[in-house]
């Protein structure tokens, strides 16, 4: 379980009109749904006001004058309209629900598909947690705004307007009083909702800090105990829960205060109705039913006002969410196929790095004037300390990045003249910590060549040396791996990704060896699998094991982005340089493991 605490940015800026327009367009794309809920909700809202008017008529035309037939007629109409409104309610819930889900679905799809095209550099500077928030909470907010938010505004405004219209129809002087009350009501409501929302934001922020604190104190509980820091930790934690308490309590009582305040304002309206209405009644300006209707309209007005205020207050946040989504969608991939790039079936031949410079961040050079020619079929071992540039060379070769200066030529052609798919699909790669996707073993290997038959997959697994351990798994090739599946060791994952690479039949093979220790048996199998892959194709290995290094045709020792030493194993040993030191240290470590100094430990057993 991860506990990324990514602070959400504050949104105090004004609403961006352009973004709001784009948000609206997301909804307009599904205009039949939008039209559907607009019509339904407006009718529902007008009907709500009309029901009160019907009650008024029932009182004045039925009860007041003792007309049973009229009363019956009006109530029948009432009943029928309720049934009709129920249909409309179904319609607006479905339209708005489907619209919201549809917008969210489309946005998720577009975001996902767009991200597939983005370059590595984008992923390097964008944390996973940030992208996850775009994909989940931001899309959620935009979807809500387009559907339910919009719906609430339409419902609220239609309701208020139609109520005012009916009131004006019954008695326009009284209606004017209520109308005068509206701006006050709305201003108060929005002010409240904004304050409440600010508090809730603090609550959310504090909440993720609390989760972080829990997580740290649970994972570090052994240290806490041995250092006797319980009291101080509790003190620090209480500060956090104190903030949490303050803001959530404040948010709660503000919410509790909100309704009564608005209610009180409407009560002034009711009082005005009673007072002025009473006077009007004497002169026949208003009837019993009219008074009833006014009281109903005014007391009900609270709800549309509250809903609209809520939407307006949260709109800022939703628009900010939309802005972040759109900015991600607007990001252009840094590496794109050139206009006249050609597709090739194979990228065999020599590989040349010609005066290549590279940096991830300006002024922090990673590779400087790097030159290297690799003959077809050669195996190159890359060694050197972390940050020396080993991975960068591999990333450049795969064209995950392009050189800032200089050229990389595949078989004599500058590789920027080829389409990326030609390069990527011809490279087989095994990562240090191999990535498996959720799904079963078979599917994970088949990832290398989607069209491969089951037999071919098994064949590749056999070549990679993975078959032996796969069949010992409970469900064999059908065993679920990755999230929620069986836990495989790093070594086993490497075997699977070797099989995946073998299945892909690449022209160039790249391997980043695991640094963590792998048990001897698996290690031997991995070596065997690598041999199968490296046999007749150009290979680059970021090597951590002596056997791999020694097997290479050439070893490149990198230091600070430049080639420090290059040559065969024997040549480099004779030089007594960096490689020599590295080799002797590694030799001792590996032998210690191999001889199993303490005895009692056999390969493949972790106890």
């Amino acid at each position, binding site marked *: 379980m991860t506990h990324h*605490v990514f602070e959400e940015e504050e949104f105090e800026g004004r609403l961006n009109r352009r973004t709001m327009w784009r948000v609206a367009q997301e909804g307009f794309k599904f205009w039949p749904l939008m039209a559907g809920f607009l019509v339904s909700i407006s009718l529902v809202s007008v009907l709500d006001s009309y029901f009160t008017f019907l*009650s008024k008529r029932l*009182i004045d035309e*039925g009860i*007041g004058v*003792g007309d049973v037939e009229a009363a019956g007629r009006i109530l029948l109409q*009432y009943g029928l309209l*309720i*049934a009709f409104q129920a249909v409309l*309610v*179904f319609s607006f819930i479905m339209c708005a*629900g489907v619209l919201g*889900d549809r917008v969210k*679905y489309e946005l*998720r799809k577009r975001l996902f598909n767009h991200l*597939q095209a983005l370059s590595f550099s984008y992923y390097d500077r964008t944390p996973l947690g940030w*992208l*996850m928030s775009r994909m*989940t909470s931001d899309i959620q907010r935009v979807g809500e705004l387009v559907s339910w938010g919009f719906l609430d505004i339409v419902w609220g405004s239609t309701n208020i307007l139609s109520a005012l219209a009916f009131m004006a129809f019954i008695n326009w002087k009284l209606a004017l009083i209520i109308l005068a009350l509206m701006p006050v009501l709305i201003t108060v409501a929005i002010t409240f909702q904004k304050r409440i929302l600010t508090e809730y934001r603090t609550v959310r922020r504090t909440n993720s800090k609390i*989760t*972080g*604190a829990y*997580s740290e*104190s*649970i994972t*570090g*509980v*052994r240290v806490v*105990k041995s250092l006797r820091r319980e009291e*101080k930790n*509790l003190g620090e934690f209480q500060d956090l*829960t104190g903030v*949490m*308490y303050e803001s959530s*309590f404040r948010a709660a*009582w503000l919410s*509790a205060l909100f*309704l*009564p305040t608005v*209610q009180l304002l409407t*009560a002034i309206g009711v009082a005005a109705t*009673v007072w002025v209405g*009473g006077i009007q009644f004497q002169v026949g300006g208003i009837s019993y039913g009219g008074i*009833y209707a006014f009281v109903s309209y005014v007391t009900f007005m609270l709800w549309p006002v509250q809903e609209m205020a809520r939407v307006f207050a949260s709109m800022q946040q939703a628009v900010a969410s939309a802005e972040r989504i759109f900015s991600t969608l607007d990001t252009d991939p840094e590496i794109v196929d050139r206009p006249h790039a050609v597709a090739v079936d194979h990228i065999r031949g020599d590989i040349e790095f010609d005066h290549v410079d590279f940096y991830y961040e300006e002024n922090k050079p990673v590779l400087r004037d790097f030159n290297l020619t690799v003959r077809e079929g050669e195996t190159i071992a890359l060694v050197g300390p972390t940050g020396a540039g080993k991975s960068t060379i591999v990333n450049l070769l795969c064209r995950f990045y392009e050189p800032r200066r200089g050229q990389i030529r595949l078989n004599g052609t500058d590789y920027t003249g080829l389409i990326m798919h030609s390069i990527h*699909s011809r490279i087989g*790669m095994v*990562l240090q910590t191999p*990535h498996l*996707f959720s799904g079963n073993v078979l599917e994970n290997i088949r990832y290398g060549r989607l069209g491969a038959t089951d037999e071919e997959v098994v064949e590749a697994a056999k070549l990679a040396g993975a078959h032996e351990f796969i069949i010992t798994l409970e469900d064999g090739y059908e065993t679920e791996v990755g999230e929620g599946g069986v*836990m495989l060791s790093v070594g086993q994952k490497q075997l699977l990704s070797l099989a*995946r690479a073998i299945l892909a039949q690449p022209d160039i093979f790249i391997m980043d060896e695991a640094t963590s220790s792998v048990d001897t048996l698996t290690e031997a199998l991995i070596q065997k699998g690598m041999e199968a892959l490296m046999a007749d194709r150009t290979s680059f290995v970021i090597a951590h094991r002596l056997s791999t290094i020694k*097997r290479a*045709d050439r070893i490149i020792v990198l230091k600070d982005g430049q080639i420090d030493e290059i040559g065969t*194993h*024997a040549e480099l040993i004779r030089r007594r340089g960096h490689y020599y030191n590295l*080799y002797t240290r590694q030799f001792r470590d590996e*032998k210690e493991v191999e*001889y199993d100094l*303490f005895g009692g430990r056999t390969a493949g057993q972790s*106890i």
Partner: protein
Amino acid sequence: MEKQTIDLKETIRPNRLAGLWQLMGGFRAIYLTAIAAVALATLARTSIYYLIRYFVDDALQSDRLLQILPWLALSFIGLATGQGLFTYLSGRWAAFTAEGLAKRLRDYLYDHLQRLTFTYHDQTQTGELIQRVTSDVDAIRLFFAEQAIGIGQIVLMFLINFIGIWLLSPYLAWMSVIVIPFVLIISLFFFKRIGTAYERFQEQEAVVSNRFQENVSGVRVVKAFARQDFEMGRFEGANHKLYRRGIYFAFMHGTFWPITDIILGGQMVFGFYIGAMMAIRGEITIGTYLAYAQMVQLIIWPIRNLGRLITQMSTASVSYSRVADIIRQDREPLNQGSTIPAGGIAGEVRFDGVHFAYEAPLKGDAVEQANTVGRLARFRDDHLLAAYGLPVLHDISFTVEPGQTVALLGSTGSGKTSLVHLLPRFYEFDRGRITIDGVDLREYPRAYLRQQIGIVMQEPFLFSRTIRDNITYGVGRKVSEEEVVAAARAAAIHDVILSFPDGYDTIVGERGVTLSGGQKQRVTLARTLLKNPQILILDDATSSVDTETEAQIREALQKQNRRRTTFIIAHRIQTVMTADLILVMDKGRIVQRGTHEGLLAQPGIYRRIYELQARIEDELQADLAASEVSSGRLPVRGD
């Protein structure tokens, strides 16, 4: 304001509702007052309708209407103010209770977790615990903040308005509630399904998130195999399923609300009809009808929300039992024990026939028990699984004089770590005796022991704060900059720290710089050195540190002019050869003991290791000689 004095452990009850009631200790009066305030607010609201009745029936007919009108208007505002005030107060008091209880629970659980035994933490999963202390606590908070008070509000609104109508006309009252039981049943029925639909929606949401996360974290593989189209297809599958579940969820709502709209709307029109007929026949006044027409709405419409609240309440009660399972666990008594030597301990340690096995699983938590084995299987230290329930230390006896260094050598799982973990009383041993300065270990309070003993663990753990904070983490007193630097120097990490842009103020971890394994080990070493314990335990503390730096550290430790008793767990002969006593362990027993020279003189594991290490050196020389003469590709393995 807060009632911190209550020990929540006392409040745990097997019955969930009783437990929740006990949990409220200190807040009960105010919560009940909050519910009473709801009643008063409802009463005020219903009175407004009575006032309308008076206004229509009496005031409007009166000659003194103009004199009455201002008072009437004032009364309306007065009642509305009363209603508003009580609504506000009930909300405020309910929030006071809910937030206060949540804070108390959070604080208690935090403290409780850091005081539970090592055994408990060995057997539980962090993710599961965090889930309980955050989401489940929040569910309990919502129970008090919204569900309990919400149900109270609906019930009170129903009762008061029902009585209100009943006082006007019992017949009308009964005629107005015919469909209520049906609506209640329908509401329960639907919300149970809506709850399930929502869960399924959320499950699928998690699937989509996982797919996405997998894609982003596996972006290298996706790109390396040019599988973007395939990935889009996979995502589309999950995404579309989420879309369909969203629609189903909307459909459930889309069915529930109109159906109840029709039933309750029908009930309302029926009530209007009865009322209107009674008014026309003169059985009730027109004012009575008007009051009725308003009150009846408060009886029927809110009822359909009961199903939602009741469904949510059952979630809260499940959460309660999940939280109660944690609270029920026993804490480690930190201050039990009477011996606290005035001048501190000297550091003589004696083990006398000690046997030790890890404890049985957690008590009383049925779910936990069922999961324990599966959980242990995922537990990082495999040896613990093997050792679980089985003795890990057999008949351990040895004596260390103050200031001496003891080295423990042995394979993984031979019991070295378990042995040193007994000293700070992280675990309780079964048989035998351990003494420090001749006093039984169990007579020292744990808190005191842990102050005297410094331990650097196998896996370094740093907190996500500054390096300085990490080094001074366990020191209970104010420390000067010089002391911090001195500790960092002794741990050979000072220069590394200075190479960071913010020096000692650099934040480590997720939101700061990432340290290598060796660097982390050295920071934790500095932390322990700063604590300056009388007994120092180094549990493979320099395993990720290179040989040169390790020698540096060893030298610095020797130079410290303090005579402390030191336990070293190590794998290299070089690290242990200078120790005063070397214990070679195998399968929980001490199989060899003595000094480096003494152990070399006798056959056994120690000599074998020594000889193997010498042999490796010989082989290295031979390999290098062979390498120099050969050229080109070499045979790989078994050469």
